[in-house]
C-alpha cells in the first residue's frame, strides 16, 4: 500500500462530513470475506468430506439428514465457537493494548486467562481427589469453573488497580503479579495431581475446540452481542485516552467511568471466550499487533482485530483437523500460524511505535 491510501481523506455527504481512512475500512471488509470463506471451507472438510454444493443445500435445509447432522450438529457449532472465541480474544487484546499503551499487555499476561486455568485445573484435579471443594468444583463443571476463575481474576485486577481511576501502568504491574500467582497455582495443582488428571488438565489449558456444541456457542454469542457494539462505541474515547490521562480529562472524557467500562468489557469478553474453549493463547497478543500493521493506524483497530482473531482461530482449527496427521488442540496451531506471521511483519515492517 502506498502512503496515499494510509492517510485520511475528508468525506462530505450533504451536511455530514468526516475523516475516512480507506485502509481502516478495507481491512475489516477483506477480513470479513476471508472469515466467511475459511468457515465455509472448514464446514466441508474433515474426516467426512462434504462437497460445496451439498454444504449449501444443507444450510438452506435441503440436504440429507446424515449430512445435516455432521454439518449442523458437529462442525457448525465448533466453527461458530471458534469464530466467537477469536472475535472476543482479538477484541479484548486490542482494548487492553490500547488502554495500557503497551503492546505486550494482553489478557494472557494480565492474569485473566491464567485465572480461568486455575479454575478449570482445580475442577479437573480436585474433582478426582474428593473432599468438599472437589465435589463443589466437580459439580460446577469445567467451563463454569473456568468462567468463575477468569471473572475472579478480572475483578481482582480491576479492584486492586482502582485508586480513584485506573492507571494503565498500575494495571500492568498488578496484572503481572496476578498472572504469576495464578500460574504458580496452576503449576502447583498440576504437580499435585494424578498424572492422568494432569494430562487431561494440560489439554484443557492448551485450548481446544473438540466436542464443542451449541450449548457452548449460545452464551458466547449472547455476551458478544452486547460487548462488541459497546466496545466499538468506546473507540472514540480510546483514541482520546491515547494522548494521556491529562489530555483526555482536558478534552472532557469522564476518565474513571471510561476506564472502568473499557477494562470491564475486555474482562468479560475474555472470560466467556476462555470458558468456552480454554485459553487459546497468543490470539489476544498477536492479533491486534497484526491488525495495526495492516491498517496502519496509531493503535490497534477494534473491529479489524476482532475479525482477524476469528479468522486466526477458525483457520487454526481447520489446519488442526485436516492438515496434520494427529489432531492437535487449536491453541497450539494459533501460535504456530500467528507467530511466524507477526515475525514476518516485524522483519519487513516500517513501524517503530506501538
Amino acid at each position, binding site marked *: 500500500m502506498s502512503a496515499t491510501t494510509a492517510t485520511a481523506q475528508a468525506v462530505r455527504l450533504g451536511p455530514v462530513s468526516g475523516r475516512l481512512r480507506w485502509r481502516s475500512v478495507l481491512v475489516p471488509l477483506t477480513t470479513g470475506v476471508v472469515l466467511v470463506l475459511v468457515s465455509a471451507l472448514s464446514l466441508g472438510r474433515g474426516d467426512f468430506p462434504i462437497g460445496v454444493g451439498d454444504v449449501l443445500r444443507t444450510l438452506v435445509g435441503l440436504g440429507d439428514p446424515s449430512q445435516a447432522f455432521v454439518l449442523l450438529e458437529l462442525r457448525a457449532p465448533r466453527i461458530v465457537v471458534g469464530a466467537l472465541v477469536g472475535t472476543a480474544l482479538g477484541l479484548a487484546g486490542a482494548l487492553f493494548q490500547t488502554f495500557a499503551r503497551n503492546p505486550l499487555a494482553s489478557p494472557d499476561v494480565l492474569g485473566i486467562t491464567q485465572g480461568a486455568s486455575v479454575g478449570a485445573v482445580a475442577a479437573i484435579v480436585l474433582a478426582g481427589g474428593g473432599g468438599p471443594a472437589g465435589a463443589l468444583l466437580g459439580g460446577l463443571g469445567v467451563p463454569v469453573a473456568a468462567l468463575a476463575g477468569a471473572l475472579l481474576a478480572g475483578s481482582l485486577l480491576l479492584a486492586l488497580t482502582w485508586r480513584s481511576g485506573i492507571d494503565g501502568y498500575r494495571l500492568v504491574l498488578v496484572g503481572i503479579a496476578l498472572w504469576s500467582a495464578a500460574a504458580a497455582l496452576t503449576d502447583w495443582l498440576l504437580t499435585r495431581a494424578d498424572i492422568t488428571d494432569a494430562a487431561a488438565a494440560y489439554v484443557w489449558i492448551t485450548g481446544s475446540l473438540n466436542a464443542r456444541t451449541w450449548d457452548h456457542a449460545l452464551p458466547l454469542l449472547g455476551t458478544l452481542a452486547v460487548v462488541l457494539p459497546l466496545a466499538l462505541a468506546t473507540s472514540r474515547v480510546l483514541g482520546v485516552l491515547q494522548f494521556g490521562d491529562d489530555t483526555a480529562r482536558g478534552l472532557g472524557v469522564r476518565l474513571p467511568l471510561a476506564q472502568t467500562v473499557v477494562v470491564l468489557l475486555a474482562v468479560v469478553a475474555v472470560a466467556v471466550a476462555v470458558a468456552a474453549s480454554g485459553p487459546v493463547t*497468543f490470539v489476544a497478543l*498477536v492479533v491486534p499487533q497484526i491488525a495495526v500493521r495492516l491498517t496502519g493506524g496509531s493503535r490497534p483497530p477494534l473491529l479489524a482485530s476482532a475479525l482477524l482473531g476469528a479468522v486466526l482461530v477458525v483457520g487454526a482449527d481447520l489446519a488442526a483437523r485436516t492438515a496434520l496427521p494427529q489432531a492437535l*488442540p487449536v491453541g497450539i496451531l494459533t501460535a504456530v500460524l500467528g507467530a511466524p506471521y507477526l515475525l514476518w511483519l*516485524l522483519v519487513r515492517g516500517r513501524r*517503530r511505535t506501538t
Partner: protein
Amino acid sequence: MTVPVVAPASPARRMPVRTRRLLGLGLLVVLAVVAALASIAVGTRSIGLGDVWRALADPSLATDDAVIVRGLRIPRTVLGLLVGTALGIAGALMQGHTRNPLGDPGLLGVTAGASLAVVLAISLLGVGTPAGYVWFALAGALAGTVLVYAIGSAGPGGATPLTLALAGAALSALLYALVRALLVGDAQTLDSFRFWVVGSLAGRGADVAWQVAPFIAVGIALAVANTPALNLLSLGEDVARGLGQRIWPARAVGLFAVTLLCGAATAACGPIAFVGLVAPHVVRAFTGPDHRWLIPCAGLLGAVLLLTADVLGRVAARPGELQAGIVLALIGAPFFIALVRRRRTVGL
C-alpha cells in the same frame, strides 16, 4: 513506556537520595545474610547456628549435622544466592533496555528455548534429573535468544526494544506451542516436565552450582560494565547518541548479559519468572532510575527473595517441600500488589 510518575515529596521522604540509597543497600545486605543463614539452619532437620559454625570450621567433623550442612545446605544456599542475584540483575537490565515494565528476562526467548530443550531431552533422550537438564536448558536458552536477536534486528529499523520484545513474545509463543504439542500426547514426559517447570532449588547439588557459576559471573561483570551506557540510553536513544554513546554495542552487551544470567538461572533451577519481574520494581522505589544503584540492589533483592521463598517452602509443607518458584509467586504477588498500590511506583 513513558509514564514518568514523580512521587510527591512528602516530608518523610525528603531524606537525601544518597542516604536513602545507602540505607536501602545496607538493609538488603543484612537481609541477604539473614536469609542465607536461615537457609543453612532451617529445614526438615533444624540445625543450630553453633553446629553450623562447627561444621564449617572443622572440615573433618563427620556428625550428621556437619554432613548435612556441608553436603546439602551450603550448596543449596550458594545456588540460591547465585540464581537469585542473576535473575534480579537480568530483570533490571531487561526492563532498562526494553523500557517496558513487563520486561521479564525470559521474554527474549530464554525460558521458552530452555523449556523446549528440556522437553526434548526428556522425551527423546530419557534424561530425568535436574543436573542432567542443565546443559540442555542452557543450550536451548542461548539458541532461543540468538533467534530472537536475529529476527528482531532483521527489520529495516534494526533492533529496537519494541521489535525485540515483540519478536521475543512471538518466538516464545511458537516455542511453547511446540512444547505443548510434544506434551499433549505424552503423559510420561509431562510427568517429569511438570516438576521442572515450577522452578525449585531442591535436588540441585554443588555440581549444578559449579556448572552455572562461570556464566553468572561473566553475566554480572557485563551487567556492571553496561550500567553507565544504560543510564544514557534511558534518556532516549537520540540524546544518548548526542552524548557520544554508541547505541548498538551498548544494547548488545546488555542483552548478552541478560541471556547469560537468565539462561544460567533457568538451567539451574527451572523457570522462575517472578524474581526478575518484581525485584527491579521494588528497589527502584529507593534507588530511583540510576542503574549504577538499581542493578546491584535488584541483584541483592533477587537473592533475598529466592532464598526466603526456598526457606518458607521447606517449612510450610513439612516433611515435604513446596517449590521455591510457587512460594515466591503466591506470597510475593500480594506483597507486590500492596507495594504498587501504596507508593506510586516510579515509572521507567
